[in-house]
């Protein structure tokens, strides 16, 4: 059978799902973002992964630590506005050296219609770095797939706390 090679330009959510499954991620928590919607749908349909919808993003930091205590790997999805909600809870990951992988879709930095997204967009990377996370950025689908693959290894195998920022240019312009 011929199976067409996936096109990363359009299939990057499927590629991220494949990578995270290969990394044995068993829990996924999220505050929705349009940029994450396909990945959220894929995980939600997967009976081997427990998904948690959150009321605020820092809940996912705590869930990830609990999952690791219990022997499972988890991933946390949010948009950049949610990073500000996480800062104190990230003390837990930092001081406990808990593996942490956050995938953050950026708002407020590229063709943004909503000015209220801009201040937190500007603060996202500095505040994550200030609390001790390693920040990796991807601006193209090809780069994103490779970045998440290496971030997953760093997080789960080297006990690191990683945020992958997914550039707004990559997500595409939101339609109003």
């Amino acid at each position, binding site marked *: 059978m011929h199976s067409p090679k996936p096109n990363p330009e359009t299939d990057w959510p499927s590629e991220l799902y494949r990578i995270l499954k290969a990394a044995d991620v068993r*829990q996924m928590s999220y505050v929705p973002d349009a940029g994450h919607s396909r990945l959220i749908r894929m995980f939600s349909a997967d009976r081997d992964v427990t998904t948690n919808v*959150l*009321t605020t993003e*820092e809940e996912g930091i*705590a*869930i990830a*630590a609990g999952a690791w205590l219990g022997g499972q790997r988890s991933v946390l999805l949010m948009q950049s506005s949610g990073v500000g909600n996480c800062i*104190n*809870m990230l003390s837990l990951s930092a001081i406990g050296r808990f593996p942490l992988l956050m995938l953050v879709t950026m708002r407020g930095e590229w063709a943004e219609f909503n000015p209220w997204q801009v201040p937190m967009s500007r603060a996202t990377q500095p505040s994550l770095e200030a609390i001790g996370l390693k920040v990796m950025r991807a601006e193209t689908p090809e780069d994103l797939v490779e970045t998440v693959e290496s971030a997953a290894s760093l997080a789960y195998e080297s006990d690191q706390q990683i945020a992958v920022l997914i550039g707004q240019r990559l997500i595409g312009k939101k339609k109003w």
Partner: protein
Amino acid sequence: MPMQAQLDRRAAVAALLKDRKDTLVVSGLGSPTYDLHSAGDHDGNFYLWGAMGGAALIGLGLAQAQPEKRVLALTGDGEQLMGLGGIATIGVARPRNLDIVVIDNQHFGETGMQASHTGRGVDLTAIAAACGFAATGTVRTLEEVQCLAAQIAAPSDGPRLFVIKVLAENPPRSLPSRDAVFIKNRFRAHLGFAAA
């Protein structure tokens, strides 16, 4: 006005955990962490010294990863009030093996005993019930805590939240290790996971 709680928090937590078997316990920062340590250090304890609002949610991640084990989040009224949204998240997740027990002195005991919301009409059990918890309740005496210990040892078809009303006082601190990496690795080793 409800009567002033008289229950000693250390006696309450000791009675709650007297026959804990293999229950895994996560304690919220401040007095619940000291109470848990005072009841007996245990490899299946994870003590928080920060991350306020996170105790029950660490319990959720743990309960989801270890569905065959009972998980208890032992926390205070102030800590759980900071994590109110987490009660909704846990209600939706509906783990069968997670209990939240709030040691409620109606005050922020660690910071000068300022009155908290729970002494001013906010009822955490009503919030949990509205979020779909399988069982909730409030207890005020040692005998009731002993009954509660038996209740949380029994299976449930969803998460439960119980409030233990205790006297607002700070007993002498009983301090576990503040080294979270050590406590984490000890906890994971207890469940059979090797340190990286």
